[in-house]
């Protein structure tokens, strides 16, 4: 009798359910770590490209590293095999909130060109808020 045809005892069935649920849960939570990484990297990018005034040599490398990381994370998210329930519920809203905050910060930088100050540090943390909310919901399952 082939393995996929053999009869399951109730204990085997429960063990199988627990094993599969654990594996799928771990795969689904990966997306939460991605949101957490974006929450940490975004302020580093925003502040790293403002530090020292305009057009410093390291600004290019900070922007390049952020862009490359964002690209890799987007590709990984696109190719993921499991979409968890919390992720399905929160991803769309978190993405739009994050994009909106980033557009707002870009507008602030282009229009006012503010110096690196405490209020700008606070503003740079705003896009991380939806990311942290999404990460928390997904990682807590």
């Amino acid at each position, binding site marked *: 009798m082939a393995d996929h045809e053999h009869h399951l005892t*109730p204990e085997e069935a429960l063990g199988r359910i627990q094993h*599969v649920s654990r594996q799928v849960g771990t795969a689904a939570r990966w997306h939460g770590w991605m949101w957490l990484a974006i929450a940490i990297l975004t302020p580093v990018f925003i502040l790293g490209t403002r530090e020292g005034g305009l057009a410093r040599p390291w600004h290019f490398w900070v922007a390049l590293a952020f862009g490359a990381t964002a690209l890799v994370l987007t590709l990984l998210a696109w190719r993921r*095999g499991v979409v968890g329930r919390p992720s399905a519920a929160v991803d769309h809203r978190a993405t739009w909130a994050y994009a909106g905050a980033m557009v707002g910060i870009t507008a602030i930088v282009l229009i006012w060109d503010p110096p690196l100050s405490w209020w700008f540090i606070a503003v740079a943390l705003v896009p991380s808020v939806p990311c942290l909310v999404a990460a928390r919901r997904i990682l807590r399952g």
Partner: protein
Amino acid sequence: MSSSHPRHELDELIHAPVRLSLMAALAAADSVDFRYLRDLVEVSDSLLSKHLATLERAGYVAMRKGYEGKRPRTWLSLTPQGQRAYDRYLATLTLITSGSPSPD
């Protein structure tokens, strides 16, 4: 042998190794990719398709096809009917393994 034993209430459609793994995987997520399921359950594409078709015919699983670039992708999820059937199955299984007698 009494037919009132809870094991007789186990949904035979779910109570098979591959289909149980599929139902457990789909119950633990919103949607799961075909290739991920294949690797998770360690079966061939054709066998997975066969079991998924059985579950789909029963109304337990919904299939959504899309593309990742030029590559086709298939997403599977439990239907509300599938979720109810799985919940019932799990409740029966828990009843059996806890050793409680059937209330009937």
